[in-house]
């Protein structure tokens, strides 16, 4: 009997200690995950920087050389916020490994694009940090990064950011939670990383916040004043940390006339942007809208805010109208009719499945008629408005 007790207790002790040891290690692993990821990212960035220094020198013609004129803007926040010309840019979806797709678009347009846009979401995953490597890559290519920063709140680690039991959805009242400092740690880290980037960059937070159907930071879960409070809080955090290189773009949806209720105020906004995407007749809910139809009314109201304006997604699908004419009409009139517009970012997404179960191809790189029209229209712009 004594032997049985002895053996059983030895057995249990072994199991208990093994589990404790394992849990201890798990705990250490959990704690070191963040630092380890940061370290890995720092190594990644360091290697890229070092390689750029060693390799990227003068062996080949650099893209940045042909964007030399843009340096005086992108390195100076005042000049870029009070633009005396129109900056062109693009978003392209095929940029996982390379920005060559942007270069191809440039080749087909016979011009260089000073703005390169990317989208990134909030969250605790390791890719949901400030995209330093990408920002640096864009900067090295001679452009300025424009980051659309989407406050999805469902990707956060629930241990660190517990979901309120009363809310069935963490996004419900999310803007209020942001304003009430719940996400400060995330915001601060992001801002600190952004500060380390040093150069100015466009930051478009919570776009289309007035669209009642689409994003969780919109009216379905939040009140306009909460959105504004969140906005101001974030900008304040950035200022406190010293991430003054962020250029704040407020970007509502032009179709829902409530947008003015969401404006955080002149002291908190540097640029105002709006998407102008013509879906044509691909869906029951869509029809062929010309650029004027999309933008005119919005412009009339918002241009009075006295901020430089941007078309942050500029594009048209093919079905239901004349795509070439859409681009021609828009670009021919833009610098004269809409003088406050100081930037146009082409939406060159070849695989857009965000609004429908169908996939839309917005890309224009291979559409020669469109690209030659764009080329011609831009060539006709006054010397004064274009570089």
């Amino acid at each position, binding site marked *: 009997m004594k032997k049985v007790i002895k053996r059983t207790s030895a057995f249990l002790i072994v199991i208990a200690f093994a589990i404790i040891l*394992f849990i201890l*290690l798990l705990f250490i692993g959990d704690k070191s995950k963040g630092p380890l990821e940061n370290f890995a990212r720092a190594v990644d960035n360091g290697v890229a920087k070092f390689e750029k220094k060693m390799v990227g020198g003068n062996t080949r013609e650099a893209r940045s050389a042909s964007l030399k004129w843009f340096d005086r803007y992108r390195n100076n926040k005042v000049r870029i916020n009070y633009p005396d010309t129109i900056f062109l840019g693009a978003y392209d979806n095929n940029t996982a490994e*390379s920005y060559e797709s942007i270069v191809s678009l440039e080749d087909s347009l016979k011009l260089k694009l000073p703005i390169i846009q990317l989208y990134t979401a909030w969250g605790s995953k390791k890719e949901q940090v400030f995209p330093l490597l990408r920002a640096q890559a864009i900067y090295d*290519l001679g452009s300025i990064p424009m980051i659309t920063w989407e406050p999805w709140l469902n990707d956060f680690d629930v241990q660190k950011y517990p979901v309120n039991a009363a809310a069935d959805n963490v996004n419900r009242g999310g803007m209020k939670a942001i304003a009430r400092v719940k996400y400060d740690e995330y915001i601060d880290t992001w801002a600190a990383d952004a500060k380390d980037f040093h150069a100015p960059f466009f930051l478009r937070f919570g776009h289309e916040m007035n669209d009642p159907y689409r994003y969780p930071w919109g009216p379905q879960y939040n009140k306009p004043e909460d959105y504004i409070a969140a906005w101001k809080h974030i900008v304040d955090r950035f200022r406190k940390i010293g991430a003054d290189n962020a250029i704040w773009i407020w970007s509502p949806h032009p179709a829902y006339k409530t947008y003015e209720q969401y404006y955080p105020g002149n002291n908190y906004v540097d640029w105002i942007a709006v998407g102008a995407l013509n879906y044509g007749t691909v869906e029951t809910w869509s029809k062929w809208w010309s650029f004027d139809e999309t933008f005119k009314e919005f412009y009339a109201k918002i241009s009075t805010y006295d901020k430089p304006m941007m078309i942050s997604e500029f594009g048209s699908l093919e079905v239901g109208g004349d795509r070439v004419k859409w681009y021609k009409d828009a670009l021919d009139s833009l610098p004269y009719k809409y003088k406050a517009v100081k930037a146009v970012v082409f939406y060159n997404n070849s695989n857009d499945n965000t609004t429908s179960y169908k996939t839309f191809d917005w890309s224009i790189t291979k559409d020669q008629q469109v690209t030659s029209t764009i080329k011609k229209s831009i060539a006709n712009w006054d010397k004064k408005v274009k570089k």
Partner: protein
Amino acid sequence: MKPKSKYDLWKFREASPSGTIKKMVLAILVLAGCISIFRLFNWWFKAEHVASLPLFLILTFIFWWGIVRMVILWVSYLQISKPEKKEALQNLSVAIFTTSSPGEPLSMFEKTLAACARITYPHTTYLLDDTKDPRFREVAEEHGAVWLELIGISGAKAGKINAALKQTREDFILVLDPDHIPFPNFFDEVLGFFNDEKVGYVQVSQAYYNQYKSFTAKGAAEQTYGFYGPTQMGMHGRNCAVAIGANCTFRRKALDSIDGHGIGLAEDLITAIRIHAAGWKSIYTPVIVSRGLVPEDLGSFCKQQLKWARGVHEVLFAEVPRLWKKLSLWQRLSYLTIGTYYFSGVTMVLFLLIPYFFFLFGWLPANMDFVEFLLNWLPVGLFGLIIYLYVQQWTCHPEKERGLHWRGMILKFACWPVFFRGFILSLKDADIPYIPTAKQAAKGFTIFARPLIFHLVLFLITVASVLIQRIYFTPEAKLSLTSGDIWGMVAFAAIAFLMVVGGIYAAWQSQKIKQEDPWMNVDLNKIETKKIITEI
């Protein structure tokens, strides 16, 4: 320093006994290690990790092959036990068989036979000679050994042993390699175990005294420390300790029951598995009661490994299936594990190829996040390391044999072409090709270094072409976004490259070994046989 540590070797040593608390700590580590492995397993097999299914399967196989072997080893450690020494009965009839072949140095036999004569338990030493050199007979008789001339017998050493068995009558036979210098108390440590009528053979540790001579010798010795300590002790605990040719004492009845000593490239292992299958017990006692020679130059080392690789596969393919039903569960597992040891030649080749597949064809086996992998793997690696170091308390000579054994690792890695070759040869059931011995190939690198040099060149060419590609051809828009992946892969290839450099160093250094006969420095009067208490 040197003389002291050298004489240090000539003392009787034994591993510490297992002990309950020590075993419990070990059990805790093993269990925690297994939980960590389970966690790693859980993470590894996710659909999102598969980049290319065939490559992922290969990677999985390489990776888990090593882990499964490690777990088997861990579990066997749990049975570590040291047999309790028993006094030998009086008047047993005991023989020592040692063999001499043409070309072996006479002076070595002088030393070995003199040492045999000093073994205190009454015995008869037999020199199984086919040198046709009259001086060998002279030396044998000078040291009171019986000279048996056994010329033209097939089956190498084992053939001679079988012939000698027919001409002799002793009940217990120690098969002693001629480079091994036995201590006077050899039989006192061994014979008592035969009081148990079921014991078929008693194996003791195999230790060496010429490690100091080269990198290769050190590395080769390092590879054996764990095996002759915790590994064999664990196997002993499950009655599956294996005979290792040298220093194994057999019961004649056991050898008779399997029609004599096994013949083949791994004759010792063949003999062991047959004796186990015939139902005999085996004893492994972790004592150092003799020291011998370990290969000093890379060529000889690789040749030995090739012979074993081929021989061990022979056991795997010919003996294991035949005797399967007669073996116990742990004996099966043990012989399977030993039989597939040299299969690492295949897994290592695949491991080496991963970065080159990436650079040549852009193939990536897995979509794994490096940090995630690290976090899942680190506990496993950590427990692996801790257990590895922890069980070193059961090595026979802990002061000397503890450590990371990095030379041994480099040497094992540098031998991948040898293991691979051995595996291919046994698949084809082909003979080992003729390889000139170290002496004949004294000038220049051993041919075994050729694949290493090829690997070195391949690495350098790859790095050069990556550099050229990056400097002149990779589009600027791609450079920084791919930089981490590319140089990460280069770093991965560099791990293997560093091991290869270590192997080439061993080959280079093998040419510079001082030509001296290590046994000439051994003073038999200084061998100490009293018990040394190493445990505190």
